[in-house]
């Protein structure tokens, strides 16, 4: 019996090894489930025809599980040829200098990247990635049908926004949709208010990294947490447990008027409710107290080329093609954009969502946008979600939240090797 088992297992090795030798190079690209792969797949199809590079998509888990998996790949030297991963602060954790190809050697690629994105994939002097998706914003989605019915206007400042919430709540709608059941969504008000933090303190990110600026002692930063306490009366009754999926339903079915969320929700509303409904959704930024408004933008996550892979040249060829106008057209037709692409000189087609083409584009045209904090500052407290939920449910005050968040960031800063003492 032992012999039989041994024989069987040896035989098994044979079929495993055959496919590895069979064909020419097929690149592997690993993307997580949080990025819809439809657009990528469409570009890959086109790339096969246009430049003759074969790429195979591999879906990996997202979230913490995915982070662990990617770190295991890196430690084990098993990174696929092309890897999709966060840009901004999380890229640092991946030790990019040893794992990813520095694209500054390929100026025709780097020159295409918009500065906002380039900043998010630059570590030291090296630039590592190209954007997988369009950019998006952390902003307030609102239902235009309710606005029309109640005769409301897009608020010019924070007080007007609260008035609008109150008007909607009085009319029987949920003034503001909260979806703390999906914990990441609780942070969007805090993170999306970053434009206002920066207008109050232009060098905040740099000073914060240096350890001289703190949330608790910066008035415009404490203000972000105060906004949480001010909107509590207008939330839907189940806002503590409602999930992201509930939020989509409340907004699209006009049960709630406002939802502070990433604009990627538009794609989801589109696929669930159709084009007509999604065009009834508008976007405005988290308003400032003085009406000096601007949009906080999440630049896209990146595709990185594995430096130690066997097919670096083909992979470079592919990402070069990926950011060409032809490829972007294919992408944008498959998957409508949640915001502008981070590619210089690329003009989106005219089939974009109303919220993106009119509302968001207006901020970009006026130049009143700023990247979210995680793209310009390496330190983000690990418990940000929980702190936002605590302050958003009234369990702690805004000042307490700011102080707790400072402590939380201190731990992260120490871990990342910043000298904060």
């Amino acid at each position, binding site marked *: 019996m032992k012999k039989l088992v041994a024989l069987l297992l040896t035989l098994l090795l044979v079929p495993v090894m055959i496919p590895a030798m069979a064909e020419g190079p097929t690149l592997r690209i690993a993307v997580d489930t949080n990025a819809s792969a439809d657009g990528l797949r469409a570009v890959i199809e086109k790339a096969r025809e246009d430049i003759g590079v074969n790429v195979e998509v591999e*879906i990996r888990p997202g979230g913490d599980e995915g982070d662990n998996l990617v770190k295991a790949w890196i430690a*084990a030297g098993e990174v696929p040829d092309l890897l999709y991963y966060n840009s901004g602060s999380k890229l640092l954790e991946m030790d990019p200098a040893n794992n990813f190809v520095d694209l500054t050697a390929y100026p025709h690629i780097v020159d295409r990247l918009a500065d906002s994105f380039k900043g998010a994939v630059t570590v030291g002097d090296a630039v590592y990635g190209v954007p997988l998706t369009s950019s998006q914003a952390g902003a307030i989605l609102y239902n235009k049908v309710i606005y029309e019915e109640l005769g409301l206007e897009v608020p010019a400042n924070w007080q007007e926004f609260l008035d609008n919430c109150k008007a909607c709540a009085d009319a029987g709608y949920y003034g503001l949709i909260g979806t703390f059941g999906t914990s990441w969504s609780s942070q969007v008000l805090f993170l999306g208010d970053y434009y206002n933090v920066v207008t109050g303190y232009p060098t905040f990110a740099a000073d914060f990294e240096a350890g001289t600026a703190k949330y608790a002692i910066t008035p415009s930063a404490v203000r972000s947490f105060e906004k949480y306490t001010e909107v509590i009366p207008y939330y839907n009754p189940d806002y503590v447990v409602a999930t992201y999926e509930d939020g989509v339903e409340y907004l699209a079915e006009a049960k709630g008027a406002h939802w502070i969320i990433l604009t990627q929700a538009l794609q989801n509303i589109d696929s669930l*409710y159709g084009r007509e409904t999604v065009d009834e959704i508008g976007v405005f930024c988290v308003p400032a107290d003085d009406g000096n408004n601007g949009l906080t933008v999440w630049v896209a996550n990146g595709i990185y080329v594995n430096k130690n892979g066997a097919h670096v040249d083909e992979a470079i060829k592919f990402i070069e093609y990926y950011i060409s106008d032809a490829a972007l057209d294919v992408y944008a037709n498959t998957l409508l954009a949640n915001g502008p692409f981070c590619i210089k000189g690329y003009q989106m087609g005219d089939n974009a969502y109303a919220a993106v083409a009119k509302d968001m584009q207006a901020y970009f045209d006026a130049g009143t946008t700023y990247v979210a904090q995680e793209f310009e500052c390496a330190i983000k407290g690990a418990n940000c979600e929980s702190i936002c939920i605590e302050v958003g449910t009234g369990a702690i005050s805004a000042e307490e939240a700011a102080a707790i968040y400072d402590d939380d960031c201190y731990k992260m800063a120490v871990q990342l090797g910043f000298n904060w003492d």
Partner: protein
Amino acid sequence: MKMKKRNPGSLAAEIIGWIVAVSLFVLPFLFVAFNSLKDRRGANKLNFTPPDVFHWENYVEVIRNNRYQILTAFKNSAEITFFSLIVLVGCSAMAGYIIQRRRTRVTAAANKLLLVGLMVPVSILPTIWLLRSLNIYKTLFSMVMIESALNLPFTIMLYRGFMDTIPTELEEAAWIDGCNKWAVFSRIIFPLLKPVTSTVIILNAVTIFNDFTNPLYFYPSNANVTVQLTIYNYISQFQSSYNLLFADVILITLPMLLLFIIFNKRIISGMVSGAVKG
């Protein structure tokens, strides 16, 4: 069914038992089944209501998704499960036999080692490093070895417990009749172990077939996908399709569910007879 007089206490206990069993096992299953037949918008609300229209095409879509990925996944999971079971049953039956029958210092040490095996979790990076240095990373062989190693201690303990119930006289008779060591085991002992073998097969088949983390880390790439990993295709931060997710869950639960229903009685008998410690 035979009529028996029951006292009201046992009747109440039985009713409570049924309620608990139904709410623990039947209701979740119904919830999954209902939602797997709704359209995406309906399923994403996660309500416990029967679907208005039956969307059987969810199942077709799940099967066709990613170029019939689920079929590859079934093949991979089945292979891993099958070969791991061969290794597990072969090694554990022999080990359990020896450990229970021979009381020497070596077997006592082996016993302690088994306990360690139960307690110490698998660490990912050292294992990957080891697999790579042996040049067997991402092979079916390594996956089979990992699954076998992880389930070996528990399986050996089941066998050892069951060996207690087999009288030594049978073996002595076999020795006298001229059997050698190998024949005693393969002709006398192993057939007697049948009840616990079926328990072992079913318990391990379910564990290995449903394993998620080990294939995720030790057996990556599209060609090596296993059934539990296919679930990840349908859930994400921004766009989840619970209808397809649940349809996938139903599809990949079915084989093990059938196995369980068919072998239900044997599992229990094997567990109970192994439980009496000598």
